[in-house]
Structures are given as structure tokens and as C-alpha cells.
């Protein structure tokens, strides 16, 4: 570890030395190429936030670049505002523009979002050509833009521009690396890997998608400012769909979400055509072919991100447990629970109540007038044949669907129609029938998703690495490790979730749900795909949890041994309605339940 660290530092030092020395061994032509390399690296990194980190298909990113360049050009030529002051202003305007145009479309998925961003890119370009209010100079653009200067030191030569852009880039890279390894960066990655699982883990999808667009656009705006001051002219032909596609290719060539990858991609895009200048007419032909080949042989990019997370010094087990134990066990409650054990009818406190809950899909009534009560500190099971509407109940309770009518109360509070991330932050965590993990992230990162809504660091504190942010990160990692340990995945913290076998994936999902210290844990067929031994372990695990934590459990299950073995209360559903409920043994003998499963006896 240490040796590797030293070596990477050495390589970094050499790269920096090379960049410092480069202009003194080169000519102006190549210094300018290196300048544009820097600008495209900025642009690539800005798109990487949106496309790479968050997985939003943005094929109109040149629009934000254009906003930055034109704001700089207009304010500098009309009002003489110095270029350097316009850097933050360009970023701000591009960010605000991104917020306004992406707000109404941010809910669109995949290809639809991609198409809309193409539309936005084209609208911006066409608007610039049409010269609104005489501001943009039409097809010819704006000329006579000034140079940046710091006091008397003007950035006016190729060499100075070269250092200017690469120093800005270095600062940006530092900020982005820190952002990537923070709560914000992880939230973006969760969205990219599985939006619904992210939302159910408490991540405000809309907020973090918008944040990624706004930050990406702001950075593109900075690149626009630098570009405008170098060329001293801006015109609409720079900001075409082709430009947006090139940025897209930069990120994809480098590797999604990889900072060095985006820089490498930018290098390829800018340097490749220069090397092939001798075959000027064919160079883009080769380039197109090279893109195809790159995707055939390196679909993950040339320099994909290695996921690793710095594990803080290992503490003794008890110490960790003390620090990260989510909710102290309330002994009085435990004894109270034990005293009513077996007396299902004497539930005094209900953690979850649904009142006449109804859900329809088109003409199909999936759930009808369901009254469901989940006792505090109890395990409640929903059983029923396939298609009975069990998972739909879960989806309505957790906010994935909005019910047609009826109410959901959690701890006495009406939560009907709450968004999933809101429901999650109130203390409901769930697992899914078909496992929904974040496949490309490590196990520890998967578990940390559950901690997201209990953390508070944001963009500024993450970039500045404030003390509270560092402490919070440490706490999050330790808590995640605690839950990995608890679910028997201790040795796998750095393994990617997708590489885990099925049973371990189920455990990981459980660890993620538990890490959020839920008050109500909702499990959708926890034992499916597990063998008898594993199912038994799961039963013991769940029962122990109930003793250790202030927790209630609602589960859907087909394994009757499990249901009858651990449930305090069982609800049977068929065709969207509740057909029976009661203590396990009563349900086991209930004629309507038997009929629902086996059909009517002739």
C-alpha cells in the first residue's frame, strides 16, 4: 500500500515536471495544442460529472460551454468587465441556465434525457445564430474579447495561456477528486448504478441530478470563459452537436466517472487529429473508425476508475460497536415486547398502518381497500399467491407508487404520497424481490448508501475537506464496516457488489437497509434463492436484530417455515384483498388461505 502510494506520487511528480518543462522544449504550435488539451480536459471533466458520475446522458453539453463563452464575450465587449472577474460569473450563469432548463426534464430517463439535451444544445446554437436582442452577433459571433490579466500581469502569450489553463485545471482536478470521494460523489454514483435503489436508500434523486447538471454546467462555463479569452472571438459554429458528441466521446474513451480517464480522453481528442495532419482529409475518417474500435476492445474506457476506499485504522471491535451502534437498545421496550409475546391482539403501538389502501394499474386493481397494521417491535408477514398484490403494497408504502386512494401512516404520521427518499429518511428501509444493489460499487460503498441521509456534508465542505466532513466520512466507513461484519461480509468490503454470489448479494442488500438504522425494515422475499441452512441463519439473524435494535419488520415470504417460525402476525392476501390475518398457527389452518393457495376443494 505504502510502496504503491510512493510510486504514484513519484509518477505524479514526473508528470507535473513534464508539464512545467514542456513549453520550453516545444514550439508555439504544440503549446497551443496543449492549451486546447487543457480546455478540453476541463470540458471532459465537466461532462464527466453529469455523464460519468451520475450517468445522465447529456449530449448537449456544448450549450453550457457556449453560455460561459458568450457571457464572457458580451459582458467584456459591452461593459469592459475584466475577463478574470467573469470566470465566476460565467460559471454562475451556466449553472443557473442549467438549473432552469434541466429542472423540467430532469425526471426523464436514459434516451429521453439524451434527446432533450440534444434539443437544448441545438436551441442554444440556433438562438445564438439568430442574434436575439442584437447581443450575440449572429452567425459571425462576437469579436474583440479582451485577455485575462492579474494586475499588470497579462495572460497574452501562448506560454502564459498554457500555464493559465493548466493551473486552473489542476485546482479543478483537486476539487473534483475530493468531491468524487465524498457523500456527494457517492450519491451521484448510486443514481448511476440504480436509481430506484438509490432513492429507497434515502437519496433525493431530483436534487442530486440537478446538482450534477449545475456543477457540470458551471465548469463548462469556466472552460467557455477561457476559450473566449484565448481566441478573442466566439461564434456559434464552435458549439455544435459535433462538439457535444466529442465531449461525450472524451468521457467514454477515458472511462465513465474516471478523472484521469477524462483527461486522457481529452488528450486523445485534441492530439490525435494533430498527429494525423499529414492525411488531413482522412484524419476524421480514422478518428471515427478509432472510436468504434475503442468501444469494441475497451468498452469500459482506456483508464477506468479503480474503486477503492481508504479504510481508517482498525479499531477494537467493542470500540467500533460503541461508536457506530445506531440506536441503543431500549431495555424497557424489549421486556415489554417479551411480555406481550404471543399475545398478538394486544399490540399497543403500531408502527405502520394503512387505511383502505387501493392501487390500480390501468384497469387492473392490484390492491383493494387494504387495512394493514404492523406492530411495533414485531415481525409481520404478508403471504399470498403470486399476483396477490404483496409487492405492490410495499411499493406504495415506500413511496414508489402513489396510491389511488387510502392512507399510509408511519408512527402515526400520514406519509401517503411521500417520495421514496423521504420515506427512507423517516426510518423505513427495504430490500427488493429482485436484488437491487449498486453493482459497479464496492460492498462498503453499497452499505454507505444507507447512511447518506444521516450525513450532512455538502459540496463546499467536501471540496474543502473540513474537519467535520472528515469525521463524518470516517464515521460512515466505520458504520458500514460494522454492518458488513454483522452480516458476515467483513472480508469483502472492497469487492464490487456485482462479483458477489447471490446469497451474499442478498446479505449485502440487508446490510445496506440496516445501516440506515431503520425503525421499520421491509423485506421482499428475503429467503428466495437461499438454501435451508441459509434460511435458518436468516431467521436467527432477524430475531436477534429485533432483540438488539428498536426495529419492526414487515416481510413478504413464500417459505412457510420462515413465516410460521418467526412471525408474530400474518396477513394473507389474494387478488389484491386481505383474506385473513392473525397469529401464524391460525392462518396456517385458515380455510380461506388454504383455498387461495391450493384452490377450492371439490
Amino acid at each position, binding site marked *: 500500500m505504502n510502496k504503491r502510494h510512493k510510486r504514484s506520487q513519484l509518477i505524479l511528480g514526473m508528470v507535473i515536471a513534464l508539464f512545467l518543462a514542456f513549453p520550453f522544449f516545444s514550439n508555439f504550435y504544440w503549446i497551443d495544442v496543449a492549451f486546447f488539451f487543457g480546455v478540453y480536459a476541463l470540458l471532459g471533466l465537466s461532462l464527466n460529472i453529469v455523464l460519468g458520475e451520475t450517468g445522465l*446522458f447529456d449530449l448537449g453539453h456544448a450549450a453550457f460551454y457556449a453560455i460561459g463563452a458568450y457571457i464572457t464575450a458580451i459582458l467584456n465587449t459591452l461593459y469592459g468587465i475584466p475577463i478574470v472577474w467573469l470566470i465566476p460569473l460565467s460559471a454562475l450563469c451556466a449553472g443557473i441556465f442549467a438549473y432552469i432548463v434541466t429542472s*423540467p*426534464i430532469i425526471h*426523464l430517463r*436514459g*434516451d*429521453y434525457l*439524451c*434527446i*432533450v439535451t*440534444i*434539443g*437544448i444544445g*441545438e*436551441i442554444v446554437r*440556433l*438562438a445564438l445564430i*439568430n442574434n436575439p436582442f442584437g447581443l450575440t452577433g449572429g452567425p459571425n459571433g462576437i469579436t474583440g474579447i479582451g485577455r485575462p490579466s492579474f494586475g499588470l500581469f497579462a495572460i497574452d502569450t501562448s506560454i502564459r495561456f498554457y500555464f493559465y489553463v493548466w493551473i486552473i485545471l489542476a485546482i479543478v482536478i483537486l476539487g473534483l477528486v475530493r468531491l468524487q470521494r465524498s457523500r456527494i460523489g457517492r450519491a451521484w454514483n448510486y443514481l448511476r448504478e440504480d436509481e*430506484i435503489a438509490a432513492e429507497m436508500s434515502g437519496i433525493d434523486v431530483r436534487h442530486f441530478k440537478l446538482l450534477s447538471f449545475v456543477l457540470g454546467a458551471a465548469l463548462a462555463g469556466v472552460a467557455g470563459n477561457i476559450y473566449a479569452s484565448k481566441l478573442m472571438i466566439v461564434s456559434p459554429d464552435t458549439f455544435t*452537436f*459535433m462538439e457535444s*458528441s466529442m465531449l*461525450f*466521446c472524451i468521457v*467514454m*474513451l477515458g472511462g*465513465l466517472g474516471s478523472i484521469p480517464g477524462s483527461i486522457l480522453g481529452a488528450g486523445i481528442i485534441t492530439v490525435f487529429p494533430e498527429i494525423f495532419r499529414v492525411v488531413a*482529409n*482522412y484524419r*476524421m*475518417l480514422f*478518428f*471515427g*473508425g*478509432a*472510436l*468504434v474500435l*475503442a*468501444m*469494441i476492445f475497451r*468498452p*469500459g474506457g482506456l483508464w477506468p476508475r479503480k474503486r477503492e476506499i481508504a479504510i481508517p485504522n482498525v479499531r477494537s471491535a467493542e470500540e467500533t460497536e460503541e461508536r457506530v451502534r445506531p440506536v441503543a437498545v431500549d431495555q424497557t421496550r424489549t421486556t415489554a415486547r417479551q411480555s406481550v409475546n404471543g399475545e398478538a391482539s394486544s399490540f399497543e403501538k403500531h408502527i405502520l398502518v394503512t387505511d383502505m389502501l387501493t392501487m390500480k*394499474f390501468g384497469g387492473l386493481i392490484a390492491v383493494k381497500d387494504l387495512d394493514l397494521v404492523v406492530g411495533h417491535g414485531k415481525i409481520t408477514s404478508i403471504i399470498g399467491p403470486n399476483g396477490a398484490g404483496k*409487492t405492490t403494497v410495499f*411499493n406504495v408504502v415506500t413511496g*414508489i407508487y402513489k396510491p389511488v386512494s387510502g392512507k399510509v401512516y408511519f408512527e402515526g404520521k400520514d406519509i401517503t404520497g411521500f417520495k421514496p427518499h423521504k420515506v427512507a429518511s423517516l426510518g423505513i428501509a427495504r430490500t*427488493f424481490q429482485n436484488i437491487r444493489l449498486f453493482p459497479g460499487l464496492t460492498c462498503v460503498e453499497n452499505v454507505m448508501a444507507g447512511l447518506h441521509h444521516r450525513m450532512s456534508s455538502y459540496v463546499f465542505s467536501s471540496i474543502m475537506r473540513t474537519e467535520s466532513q472528515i469525521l463524518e466520512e470516517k464515521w460512515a466507513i466505520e458504520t458500514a464496516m460494522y454492518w458488513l461484519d454483522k452480516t458476515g461480509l467483513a472480508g469483502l468490503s472492497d469487492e464490487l457488489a456485482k462479483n458477489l454470489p447471490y446469497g451474499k448479494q442478498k446479505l449485502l442488500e440487508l446490510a445496506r437497509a440496516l445501516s440506515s438504522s431503520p425503525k421499520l425494515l421491509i423485506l421482499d422475499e428475503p429467503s428466495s434463492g437461499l438454501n435451508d441452512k441459509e434460511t435458518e441463519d436468516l431467521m436467527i439473524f432477524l430475531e436477534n436484530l429485533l432483540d438488539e435494535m428498536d426495529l419492526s419488520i414487515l416481510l413478504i415470504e413464500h417459505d412457510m417455515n420462515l413465516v410460521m417460525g418467526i412471525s408474530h402476525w400474518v396477513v394473507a392476501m389474494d387478488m389484491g384483498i386481505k383474506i385473513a390475518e392473525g397469529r401464524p398457527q391460525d392462518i396456517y389452518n385458515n380455510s380461506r388461505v388454504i383455498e387461495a393457495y391450493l384452490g377450492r376443494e371439490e
Partner: protein
Amino acid sequence: MSIILEQLLNGLTIGSFYALIALGYSMVYGVMKLINFAHGDLFALGSYLGYTLLVWSAGAVSQRFGLWGGMAAALLFAFFAVGCVGVLMERVAYRPVQKSGRLPLVVSALGVSIFLENLIMAVWGPRYQAYPASVVPTYTISLGWFHITSMQLFILILSFVLMLILYYVVQKTTFGAAIRATALDKEMATMLGIDVGKITLFIFFLGPALGGMAGVMNGMYYRQISFVMGWNYGLKAFTATILGGIGNIPAAMLGGLLLGLVEMFGAAYISSAWKDVFTFLILILILIFRPTGLIGEKVAEKV
């Protein structure tokens, strides 16, 4: 009245180009869930191939078969040649990337698009080329105040016939049902014994082939062709695809015709400089309020 009718005709003519190109987008999206960014360039390629057949043979084709015969030859040539290029494109650039997910596929499509565009430029040069008047029939048919050029009439009839045939094949035949099944659920279709490979081959032949044919028609209609035209038409046709509802073949036809009309009337009665802005605004509004297009059906995501 006659002006409105003329706009209507112009709109429908452009709309049929969009519709023919849109079909290719929609079909490919159906089987591969890929926005084939190279499709517009295939359209441009068709335009150039038709041009080559008519012009480089020094008018020999037109002299031997007559004007209409020459045109038919150019259309057929573009149809088959571009269809083959489409199949080749799928084999070389898409199939090997498909398993890696959708993003690499998008980049591959962009790569093919850049490749084709620059191939056209390398072969035919960067300047505009013109279909000469001598190879294109140019009568005008007049019925009182109503005028229509023979070319317009031909384009409208041919594209409607093509669309009707395609509509029939896709909606009424077993093979069409297999195509629709593949578009809905490829895995399930495979398990039901549908030869998805064959369907993919067919789609990647027919989609580009129709686009190539539209390219020739477009060249004959406007007479001027350029290597960058693919992108513009591609984008418009693609908008049309979304307008109708992507992945749905009749929807693509409807979307194309509708977009042609919107554009023509937008340019005539609102502003010709801002007409493309309107087109894209419509696109965005449709995606916000009816993301499945005008006649697409909503698909609920399974949780």
C-alpha cells in the same frame, strides 16, 4: 387557399423524407434500443450513390432507360447499396459492442457517423454536388389554380406506397408480428423461437435502405447535396420518431409527416429563422408531457 395548399404539399413532401428516415431510426431502436446516430449519414450516402449512378455514368443510365427509368435505377441502387452498408455497419460496429451496454453503443454509433460523413467527403469532396436538371424529370402538373411538380407527386406516391407496404408487413403478417415481438422483448422473442438474428439483419437492411432511397428522392427534389446534410436530416427525422413514439413503426410515419407540416407552416406563418427552434421546443415539450410520443404506449417500470 392555393398558398395553403402549396404549403401543405411542400410540408408533406419534406414530411415523407422525414418519415422514411424516421422509420429506420424507429426500427433500429426497436431491436437494439440504440439511437442510431449514423442513420442520417446513411441517408446522405444514399443521396450520393444515386447521384453517382446518374452522373458519373455520364447520363448513360438515363439515356438507356429514359428519365423515369434512370430515376428508378438510382433509387433501387441506393436502396440495395445503403441496405448492405447498414448490415455491414451492424456486423462490424454494433454487434461486437452490444454486450458492453448502451453507452459504448452510442459512442460506436457516433464513430460510424463521423466515419461515414468523412468517407463521403473523402470520396466526393467537400463541396456541394448537384443532381443535374438533365437527369431529373421536371414537369409541372396544373389543375386550374393548383400546381404540383411531377417530382413532388412522384415522391408523395412512392413514399406512401412504401409506407403502406411496410405498414402491412409489420402490422398484418406473421413476420411483422415477429418484428414487433422482438422490439418488445428480445429475450422472450428468442425463447419463443423467433430468429432474432434474422430480424436484426432484416431491420438493419431495410431501415438504412429506406433512408438511402429517401436520400435519392431528396437529391432529386432539391437537386443539391452535401456531405454534411445527413446530420441535419437525421436530427429532424429523429425528432419525428420521438414525436410519433419511438420503436413504433406507424408512429414514425405519422411523426415524419406531422413534422414536415409543422415545419412548413411554422416557417410560413411564424418565422423561418426560428422554425428549427420551434421544432426542438415541440420535441422537448412532447417529451415532458407525453414521453411516449403521440401514439406510443406507456410502459411501467417493474420494481
